[in-house]
């Protein structure tokens, strides 16, 4: 009886929280960041990308991503292991994301057995030929931009973000449409110095996985050069208990199969 009361009360509180508009842009961004990148304490997903250029020529990439949060909302670790196509097979990308300094990133090239480190400045460039950037894999730090809530609609918080260091990025600003229920950014539009929309990211599908609203299809479009990359996520699992040592140089040469393989359940 007591338990039922607590449940009812907390449901009421949650409903309240959803119904009331948030007005603090930084707080919305913070929740959105957590919803987008910090679901569960860790996670696994298989990803495939279909890259189409302006002429309609298509390329594919397929990989498995493991992620672990060092701290909720803070540092994170990512391991990306490629399975296709054949010329990037067994290539491994490792990211140590930090809040207080630039991320550390390594790329393992199996042909040369070479652990190549990627410089911090080299982050808004194509990730393995896709319209996605390296930075999109691990997420951009909220503290790198200033945020302004421009509109609250029935469905979305619409925010405008301006980089604090404009020289480090190719955009002048970007606008996000953040779902008021899930806090997932459903659309992001990037504008260049000329005020022209040149790049957008859209979420095409969201599914509930282990209680986390999770993007399972998304698309990045290039509005100047043409072309787009569709991204699809499958075999997603959260809270696997990934240990810290999965995200070290060891995993570059010897990917952790126990965690990369699909679980039986």
């Amino acid at each position, binding site marked *: 009886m007591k338990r039922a009361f607590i449940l009812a009360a907390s449901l009421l509180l949650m409903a309240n929280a959803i119904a009331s508009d948030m007005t603090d842009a930084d707080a919305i961004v913070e929740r959105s960041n957590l919803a987008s990148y910090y679901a569960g304490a860790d996670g696994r997903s*298989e990803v*495939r990308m*279909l*890259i189409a*250029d302006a002429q309609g*020529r*298509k*390329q*594919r990439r*397929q990989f*498995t991503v493991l992620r672990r949060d060092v701290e909720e909302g803070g540092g994170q670790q990512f391991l990306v292991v490629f*399975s*296709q*196509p*054949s*010329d990037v*097979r067994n290539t491994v990308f490792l990211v*140590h994301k*930090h809040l207080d*300094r*630039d991320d*550390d990133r390594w790329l393992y090239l199996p*042909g*040369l*057995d*070479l*652990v190549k*480190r990627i*410089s*911090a*400045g*080299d982050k*808004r*460039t*194509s990730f*393995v*030929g*896709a*319209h996605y950037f390296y930075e999109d894999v691990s997420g951009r730090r909220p503290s790198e931009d200033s945020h302004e809530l421009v509109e609250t609609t029935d469905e979305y918080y619409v925010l405008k973000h301006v980089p604090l260091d404009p020289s*480090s990025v*190719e955009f002048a600003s970007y606008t996000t449409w953040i779902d008021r229920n899930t806090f997932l950014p459903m659309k992001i539009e990037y504008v260049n110095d000329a005020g022209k929309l040149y790049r957008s990211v859209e979420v095409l599908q969201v599914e509930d996985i282990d209680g986390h609203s999770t993007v399972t299809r998304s698309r990045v479009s290039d509005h100047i*050069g043409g072309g787009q990359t*569709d991204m699809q996520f*499958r*075999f997603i699992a959260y809270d696997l208990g990934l240990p810290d*040592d999965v995200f*070290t*140089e*060891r995993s570059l*040469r*010897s990917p952790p*199969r126990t965690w990369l*393989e*699909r679980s039986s359940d």
Partner: protein
Amino acid sequence: MRLWLLVLLLPGLALARDDDLWDDEWEDEEAGLPFAGFLEAGVGFRLQDDPLIDKDLTLGDLRARLEAEWTPGRSTVSLKADAWYDDIETGIEAEVRDLSVAFRAGDNVDVKIGRQVQTWGTGDLVFLNDLFPKDFVSFFSGRDDEYLKAPGNSIRLSRFGSAFNFDLVWSPVFDPDIYLDGNRFSFFSPVAGGNVAPSPPLSAVEPDEGIGNGEIALRVFRNIEGNEYAAYAYYGYFKQPTALTASFEPTFAPLAAFGASLRRPMGSGLFNAEVVYYSSRDDTDGTDPLLPNDQFRALAGYEWEALPNFTVGLQYYLEATLDYDELEANSPNPSFEPDQYRHLLTNRLTYRAARDRHTFSLFTFYSPSDSDYYLRPAYTYRHSDQWSLTAGGNLFGGDEPQTFFSQLSDATNIYLRVRFNY
């Protein structure tokens, strides 16, 4: 020879695979490819004559690659093998680049046994503590960068701990570099006082294949807050045939090496530094004219993205020959000895366009002390996941005939490679 059959089979297999799987549902099987590889044709030729070599072609390869992986139990067996027709040197060739079994022995130990390619150290195309075999002939003739690293047979034991990690590599039989032998490119001989292209090609005397004549390489490393520290040790032989036997045949002098490296972010780029001390084990006092002297080598580099998609890398490298007075005093030909201090500057420029569809790069080696240079321009066009094309050059020059890059002046070449990945 059986590998060669694959060349005939592969195009058929490649066509059989549907390359637009996007509409399909993901199957419940694991995501990896059971096998993969490529077919490649490469041709390259000299931009001038080499009076010593009666061939205009510097690259003439038709190559098939097969890669496969099996995972019996908790181990991984991998295979990477090439079969190719080499128009210049040997006709039909086959080489296994990887045939190894890797497994985890306990929580913190990885073992990899078999034929494998290995790399460590921080230099970009400059190697100090990386004493694994390299194939300079492939490198100079315009084969894919991958072929700079030659495979070797070894046992690699890696231990990962909270304080330190280490790799221990034992190669029971010494694996030298693939050195200039006069077949594809002529090289400078101090005995002849000029370039030579011996026939049969130079074949240096290798150490006896006894236990104790192999190589042991050790790396101890740790990443502290993004700073990568490493210490290295090596016991084996110089990888190039820079020594002479008592009967004046080229051979590999015994070597022990000790070094260290650091790689860390600096500003928006990456800084790397590496040092190594080479001890010529049988000539520590530097008086034996048949053996190389001890050396100290140092490298410092910085790489950063100067403009979007445009990366610049700079390196300074020093090779200091120790006991130099003894070297000069005992040398039959002091004027052909290397300088006491050899300085080398390198520069890598890379520009990527259209999401890596086009990659332009220029790697430059320039030695102010040797007054010689080596330019490696290359352009890669990735047409699709299957087809790619690379065009480039290897341009050498210098003032004096005996310096490393200058001896290759007549090897200056351009090349074109077309690859089909399956």
